[in-house]
Protein backbone atom coordinates (compact mmCIF):
# COMPACT_ATOMS: atom_id res chain seq x y z
CA UNK A 1 0.00 0.00 0.00
CA UNK A 2 1.02 3.59 -0.62
CA UNK A 3 0.67 5.46 2.69
CA UNK A 4 1.22 9.18 3.13
CA UNK A 5 1.94 10.39 6.65
CA UNK A 6 1.76 14.09 7.46
CA UNK A 7 3.72 15.37 10.46
CA UNK A 8 7.21 14.12 11.26
CA UNK A 9 7.14 14.43 15.03
CA UNK A 10 7.64 11.42 17.31
CA UNK A 11 4.37 9.78 16.27
CA UNK A 12 4.98 10.30 12.55
CA UNK A 13 8.57 9.10 12.78
CA UNK A 14 7.93 5.85 14.66
CA UNK A 15 4.82 5.14 12.63
CA UNK A 16 6.75 5.56 9.36
CA UNK A 17 9.50 3.34 10.64
CA UNK A 18 7.19 0.49 11.55
CA UNK A 19 5.11 0.76 8.37
CA UNK A 20 8.30 0.68 6.29
CA UNK A 21 9.41 -2.42 8.16
CA UNK A 22 6.10 -4.03 7.20
CA UNK A 23 6.97 -3.45 3.56
CA UNK A 24 4.62 -0.58 2.71
CA UNK A 25 5.48 2.31 0.44
CA UNK A 26 5.63 5.22 2.89
CA UNK A 27 6.12 8.94 2.37
CA UNK A 28 6.45 11.18 5.42
CA UNK A 29 5.72 14.88 4.89
CA UNK A 30 7.42 17.34 7.25
CA UNK A 31 7.56 21.11 6.85
CA UNK A 32 10.41 21.98 9.21
CA UNK A 33 13.68 21.71 7.21
CA UNK A 34 15.83 20.77 10.24
CA UNK A 35 13.45 18.06 11.35
CA UNK A 36 13.16 16.84 7.75
CA UNK A 37 16.98 16.56 7.52
CA UNK A 38 16.99 14.34 10.61
CA UNK A 39 14.18 12.21 9.18
CA UNK A 40 16.03 11.81 5.86
CA UNK A 41 19.12 10.58 7.75
CA UNK A 42 17.01 8.06 9.64
CA UNK A 43 14.50 6.89 7.04
CA UNK A 44 16.20 7.65 3.73
CA UNK A 45 15.54 10.41 1.22
CA UNK A 46 12.98 8.32 -0.69
CA UNK A 47 10.64 8.29 2.28
CA UNK A 48 10.66 11.92 3.38
CA UNK A 49 9.23 14.98 1.67
CA UNK A 50 10.03 18.51 2.84
CA UNK A 51 6.87 20.58 2.45
CA UNK A 52 3.62 21.80 3.98
CA UNK A 53 1.13 18.97 4.25
CA UNK A 54 -1.77 21.42 4.15
CA UNK A 55 -0.65 22.76 0.81
CA UNK A 56 -2.37 21.19 -2.14
CA UNK A 57 0.66 21.72 -4.38
CA UNK A 58 2.61 19.41 -2.06
CA UNK A 59 -0.19 16.88 -2.42
CA UNK A 60 -0.04 16.97 -6.21
CA UNK A 61 3.75 16.52 -6.16
CA UNK A 62 3.66 13.47 -3.90
CA UNK A 63 1.02 11.71 -5.95
CA UNK A 64 -1.74 11.96 -3.39
CA UNK A 65 -4.31 10.71 -5.88
CA UNK A 66 -2.76 7.24 -5.85
CA UNK A 67 -2.41 7.01 -2.06
CA UNK A 68 -4.32 4.20 -0.35
CA UNK A 69 -4.45 6.10 2.90
CA UNK A 70 -3.42 9.43 4.38
CA UNK A 71 -2.52 9.58 8.05
CA UNK A 72 -2.35 13.04 9.66
CA UNK A 73 -0.43 13.04 12.94
CA UNK A 74 0.68 16.62 13.53
CA UNK A 75 0.15 18.09 16.99
CA UNK A 76 -2.66 20.39 15.81
CA UNK A 77 -6.16 19.07 15.34
CA UNK A 78 -7.08 21.74 12.81
CA UNK A 79 -4.06 20.93 10.64
CA UNK A 80 -4.93 17.23 10.75
CA UNK A 81 -8.50 18.00 9.75
CA UNK A 82 -7.47 20.14 6.78
CA UNK A 83 -5.00 17.49 5.57
CA UNK A 84 -7.70 14.82 5.69
CA UNK A 85 -10.37 17.02 4.10
CA UNK A 86 -8.05 17.85 1.20
CA UNK A 87 -7.04 14.22 0.78
CA UNK A 88 -10.61 12.98 0.89
CA UNK A 89 -12.53 15.62 -1.01
CA UNK A 90 -9.93 16.92 -3.44
CA UNK A 91 -7.89 13.81 -4.16
CA UNK A 92 -10.39 11.05 -3.44
CA UNK A 93 -8.10 9.14 -1.05
CA UNK A 94 -10.11 6.11 0.13
CA UNK A 95 -8.99 6.14 3.76
CA UNK A 96 -8.11 9.12 5.95
CA UNK A 97 -6.88 8.76 9.50
CA UNK A 98 -6.37 11.67 11.87
CA UNK A 99 -4.76 12.01 15.26
CA UNK A 100 -6.77 14.25 17.55
CA UNK A 101 -5.69 15.84 20.80
CA UNK A 102 -9.03 17.11 22.01
CA UNK A 103 -11.26 14.02 22.36
CA UNK A 104 -14.32 16.18 21.79
CA UNK A 105 -13.19 16.67 18.20
CA UNK A 106 -13.82 13.00 17.39
CA UNK A 107 -17.47 13.63 16.58
CA UNK A 108 -16.69 16.67 14.43
CA UNK A 109 -14.11 14.74 12.40
CA UNK A 110 -16.53 11.84 11.92
CA UNK A 111 -19.29 14.18 10.77
CA UNK A 112 -16.92 15.58 8.15
CA UNK A 113 -16.21 12.16 6.75
CA UNK A 114 -12.78 11.49 8.22
CA UNK A 115 -12.67 7.68 8.40
CA UNK A 116 -10.77 7.09 11.63
CA UNK A 117 -9.67 9.30 14.50
CA UNK A 118 -7.11 8.33 17.10
CA UNK A 119 -7.22 10.31 20.32
CA UNK A 120 -3.98 10.01 22.24
CA UNK A 121 -5.56 11.73 25.23
CA UNK A 122 -8.39 9.20 25.34
CA UNK A 123 -6.08 6.22 24.93
CA UNK A 124 -3.98 7.34 27.88
CA UNK A 125 -7.09 8.11 29.90
CA UNK A 126 -8.56 4.65 29.20
CA UNK A 127 -5.29 2.95 30.18
CA UNK A 128 -5.22 4.86 33.44
CA UNK A 129 -8.88 4.08 34.16
CA UNK A 130 -8.11 0.40 33.62
CA UNK A 131 -5.01 0.47 35.78
CA UNK A 132 -6.69 2.17 38.71
CA UNK A 133 -9.32 0.28 40.68
CA UNK A 134 -11.79 3.15 40.39
CA UNK A 135 -15.49 2.70 40.03
CA UNK A 136 -15.60 3.94 36.50
CA UNK A 137 -16.99 3.42 33.05
CA UNK A 138 -14.05 2.83 30.73
CA UNK A 139 -14.52 4.17 27.21
CA UNK A 140 -13.33 1.51 24.81
CA UNK A 141 -14.41 2.81 21.43
CA UNK A 142 -16.31 5.70 19.89
CA UNK A 143 -18.48 4.45 17.05
CA UNK A 144 -18.50 6.58 13.96
CA UNK A 145 -21.82 8.35 13.89
CA UNK A 146 -24.06 9.69 16.59
CA UNK A 147 -21.43 9.72 19.32
CA UNK A 148 -22.27 6.19 20.51
CA UNK A 149 -19.64 4.72 22.82
CA UNK A 150 -18.67 1.20 23.69
CA UNK A 151 -18.00 1.17 27.43
CA UNK A 152 -16.84 -1.33 30.01
CA UNK A 153 -17.38 -1.49 33.75
CA UNK A 154 -17.66 -3.82 36.69
CA UNK A 155 -20.97 -4.02 38.57
CA UNK A 156 -20.39 -2.62 42.04
CA UNK A 157 -21.93 -4.32 45.10
CA UNK A 158 -25.12 -2.84 46.48
CA UNK A 159 -25.97 -0.93 43.32
CA UNK A 160 -29.38 -1.14 41.60
CA UNK A 161 -27.92 -3.69 39.14
CA UNK A 162 -26.59 -6.06 41.82
CA UNK A 163 -29.02 -9.02 41.96
CA UNK A 164 -31.59 -7.47 39.61
CA UNK A 165 -32.97 -8.71 36.31
CA UNK A 166 -31.72 -6.62 33.37
CA UNK A 167 -35.20 -5.83 32.10
CA UNK A 168 -36.27 -4.41 35.49
CA UNK A 169 -33.32 -2.10 35.73
CA UNK A 170 -34.75 0.78 33.73
CA UNK A 171 -31.88 1.02 31.29
CA UNK A 172 -32.68 3.81 28.80
CA UNK A 173 -33.68 2.82 25.26
CA UNK A 174 -30.54 4.31 23.75
CA UNK A 175 -28.25 2.11 25.85
CA UNK A 176 -27.78 -1.65 25.68
CA UNK A 177 -25.80 -4.18 27.71
CA UNK A 178 -24.24 -6.39 25.03
CA UNK A 179 -21.96 -8.73 26.95
CA UNK A 180 -21.42 -10.01 30.47
CA UNK A 181 -18.23 -11.62 31.75
CA UNK A 182 -18.75 -13.59 34.96
CA UNK A 183 -15.69 -15.48 36.19
CA UNK A 184 -14.55 -17.54 33.20
CA UNK A 185 -17.99 -17.40 31.56
CA UNK A 186 -18.83 -14.90 28.85
CA UNK A 187 -22.36 -14.52 27.56
CA UNK A 188 -24.77 -12.24 25.74
CA UNK A 189 -27.47 -11.31 28.22
CA UNK A 190 -31.25 -11.36 27.71
CA UNK A 191 -33.88 -9.39 29.59
CA UNK A 192 -34.03 -12.22 32.13
CA UNK A 193 -30.32 -12.18 32.98
CA UNK A 194 -29.74 -11.36 36.62
CA UNK A 195 -26.63 -9.25 37.11
CA UNK A 196 -24.35 -9.73 40.08
CA UNK A 197 -21.68 -7.66 41.73
CA UNK A 198 -18.26 -8.09 40.07
CA UNK A 199 -19.83 -8.95 36.68
CA UNK A 200 -17.88 -7.25 33.94
CA UNK A 201 -20.21 -5.51 31.54
CA UNK A 202 -19.78 -4.30 27.98
CA UNK A 203 -22.43 -1.81 26.89
CA UNK A 204 -23.15 0.60 24.08
CA UNK A 205 -24.60 3.96 25.02
CA UNK A 206 -25.18 7.51 23.88
CA UNK A 207 -23.47 10.21 25.96
CA UNK A 208 -26.90 11.28 27.26
CA UNK A 209 -27.59 7.89 28.84
CA UNK A 210 -24.12 7.40 30.27
CA UNK A 211 -24.96 8.98 33.64
CA UNK A 212 -27.94 6.61 34.03
CA UNK A 213 -25.78 3.54 33.28
CA UNK A 214 -23.20 4.85 35.71
CA UNK A 215 -25.81 5.18 38.45
CA UNK A 216 -27.37 1.73 37.82
CA UNK A 217 -24.13 -0.24 37.47
CA UNK A 218 -21.69 1.71 39.61
CA UNK A 219 -23.89 3.62 42.01
CA UNK A 220 -22.08 6.86 41.27
Amino acid at each position, binding site marked *: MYLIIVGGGKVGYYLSKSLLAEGHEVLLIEKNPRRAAFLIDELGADHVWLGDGCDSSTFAQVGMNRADAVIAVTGDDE*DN*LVVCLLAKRKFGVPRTIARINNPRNAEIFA*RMGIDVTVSTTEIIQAQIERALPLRSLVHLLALRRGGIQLVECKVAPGTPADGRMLRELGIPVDALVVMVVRGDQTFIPSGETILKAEDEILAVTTPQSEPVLRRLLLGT
Partner: protein
Amino acid sequence: MRIVILGCGRLGAHLARQFTQDGHEVVVIDRERDALEALGSDFPGETVVGMGIDAEVLRRAGIERADVFIAVTGYDNTNIMAAEVAREIFGVPRVITRLNDPLRAEIFQELGLKTVSPTALAVEAIRKCLED
Protein backbone atom coordinates in the same frame (compact mmCIF):
# COMPACT_ATOMS: atom_id res chain seq x y z
CA MET B 1 -28.74 39.81 12.43
CA ARG B 2 -26.74 37.89 15.01
CA ILE B 3 -23.13 37.74 13.82
CA VAL B 4 -20.42 35.64 15.49
CA ILE B 5 -16.85 36.65 14.64
CA LEU B 6 -13.91 34.37 15.44
CA GLY B 7 -10.56 36.14 15.77
CA CYS B 8 -10.13 39.63 17.17
CA GLY B 9 -7.12 40.85 15.23
CA ARG B 10 -7.18 43.91 13.01
CA LEU B 11 -9.75 42.49 10.63
CA GLY B 12 -11.94 40.88 13.30
CA ALA B 13 -12.01 44.04 15.43
CA HIS B 14 -12.83 46.26 12.45
CA LEU B 15 -15.64 43.96 11.37
CA ALA B 16 -17.02 43.85 14.91
CA ARG B 17 -17.12 47.64 15.21
CA GLN B 18 -18.58 48.07 11.74
CA PHE B 19 -21.34 45.52 12.27
CA THR B 20 -22.34 46.91 15.68
CA GLN B 21 -22.53 50.38 14.11
CA ASP B 22 -24.75 48.90 11.41
CA GLY B 23 -27.07 47.79 14.19
CA HIS B 24 -26.27 44.07 14.27
CA GLU B 25 -25.95 41.89 17.34
CA VAL B 26 -22.25 40.94 17.44
CA VAL B 27 -20.26 38.37 19.44
CA VAL B 28 -16.46 38.25 19.14
CA ILE B 29 -14.39 35.20 20.15
CA ASP B 30 -10.64 35.20 20.70
CA ARG B 31 -8.32 33.01 22.74
CA GLU B 32 -6.51 36.13 24.05
CA ARG B 33 -8.37 38.27 26.56
CA ASP B 34 -6.11 41.23 25.67
CA ALA B 35 -7.23 41.14 22.06
CA LEU B 36 -10.87 41.38 23.13
CA GLU B 37 -10.14 44.17 25.63
CA ALA B 38 -8.60 46.17 22.78
CA LEU B 39 -12.15 46.59 21.41
CA GLY B 40 -12.60 49.17 24.18
CA SER B 41 -14.96 49.36 27.13
CA ASP B 42 -17.58 51.11 24.98
CA PHE B 43 -17.88 48.12 22.61
CA PRO B 44 -21.58 47.29 22.66
CA GLY B 45 -21.26 43.66 21.53
CA GLU B 46 -20.45 40.51 23.53
CA THR B 47 -17.02 38.92 23.88
CA VAL B 48 -16.03 35.31 24.61
CA VAL B 49 -12.53 34.05 25.52
CA GLY B 50 -11.69 30.62 24.10
CA MET B 51 -10.55 28.46 21.22
CA GLY B 52 -12.91 28.86 18.30
CA ILE B 53 -12.52 25.28 17.11
CA ASP B 54 -14.06 24.08 20.36
CA ALA B 55 -17.77 23.40 19.95
CA GLU B 56 -18.31 24.29 23.62
CA VAL B 57 -16.81 27.76 23.14
CA LEU B 58 -18.92 28.32 20.03
CA ARG B 59 -22.02 27.35 22.01
CA ARG B 60 -21.12 29.89 24.69
CA ALA B 61 -20.99 32.49 21.94
CA GLY B 62 -24.57 31.57 21.06
CA ILE B 63 -23.71 30.09 17.69
CA GLU B 64 -26.94 28.09 17.71
CA ARG B 65 -28.84 31.35 17.21
CA ALA B 66 -26.35 32.94 14.79
CA ASP B 67 -27.33 34.06 11.29
CA VAL B 68 -23.72 34.60 10.23
CA PHE B 69 -20.37 33.14 11.30
CA ILE B 70 -17.12 34.78 10.18
CA ALA B 71 -13.74 33.09 10.80
CA VAL B 72 -10.84 35.57 10.63
CA THR B 73 -8.07 34.26 12.91
CA GLY B 74 -4.53 34.47 11.53
CA TYR B 75 -4.43 30.71 10.92
CA ASP B 76 -6.03 29.34 7.78
CA ASN B 77 -6.55 25.85 9.15
CA THR B 78 -8.18 27.14 12.34
CA ASN B 79 -10.54 29.19 10.17
CA ILE B 80 -11.37 26.19 8.00
CA MET B 81 -12.06 23.92 10.96
CA ALA B 82 -14.16 26.55 12.78
CA ALA B 83 -16.12 27.26 9.60
CA GLU B 84 -16.81 23.56 9.01
CA VAL B 85 -17.97 23.17 12.61
CA ALA B 86 -20.26 26.19 12.27
CA ARG B 87 -21.66 24.89 9.01
CA GLU B 88 -21.89 21.15 9.58
CA ILE B 89 -22.53 20.87 13.32
CA PHE B 90 -24.47 24.04 14.06
CA GLY B 91 -26.04 24.65 10.64
CA VAL B 92 -25.28 28.39 10.62
CA PRO B 93 -26.92 29.71 7.41
CA ARG B 94 -24.06 31.94 6.28
CA VAL B 95 -20.42 31.10 6.98
CA ILE B 96 -17.54 33.18 5.68
CA THR B 97 -13.87 32.22 6.03
CA ARG B 98 -10.76 34.33 5.56
CA LEU B 99 -7.88 32.29 4.10
CA ASN B 100 -4.49 33.88 3.47
CA ASP B 101 -3.40 31.09 1.15
CA PRO B 102 -5.16 31.80 -2.18
CA LEU B 103 -4.82 28.18 -3.29
CA ARG B 104 -6.49 26.82 -0.18
CA ALA B 105 -9.16 29.52 -0.56
CA GLU B 106 -9.86 28.31 -4.08
CA ILE B 107 -10.06 24.65 -3.10
CA PHE B 108 -12.30 25.13 -0.08
CA GLN B 109 -14.51 27.47 -2.09
CA GLU B 110 -14.89 24.58 -4.55
CA LEU B 111 -15.70 22.32 -1.61
CA GLY B 112 -18.55 24.59 -0.57
CA LEU B 113 -17.10 27.12 1.90
CA LYS B 114 -17.47 30.83 1.19
CA THR B 115 -13.84 31.97 1.32
CA VAL B 116 -12.17 35.36 1.08
CA SER B 117 -8.46 35.56 0.37
CA PRO B 118 -6.90 38.96 1.21
CA THR B 119 -3.78 37.91 -0.71
CA ALA B 120 -5.73 37.32 -3.92
CA LEU B 121 -7.73 40.53 -3.39
CA ALA B 122 -4.54 42.57 -2.87
CA VAL B 123 -2.91 41.09 -5.95
CA GLU B 124 -5.97 42.00 -7.97
CA ALA B 125 -6.06 45.55 -6.55
CA ILE B 126 -2.37 46.16 -7.19
CA ARG B 127 -2.66 44.88 -10.74
CA LYS B 128 -5.56 47.27 -11.27
CA CYS B 129 -3.42 50.18 -10.01
CA LEU B 130 -0.83 49.37 -12.65
CA GLU B 131 -3.40 49.21 -15.41
CA ASP B 132 -4.70 52.72 -14.68
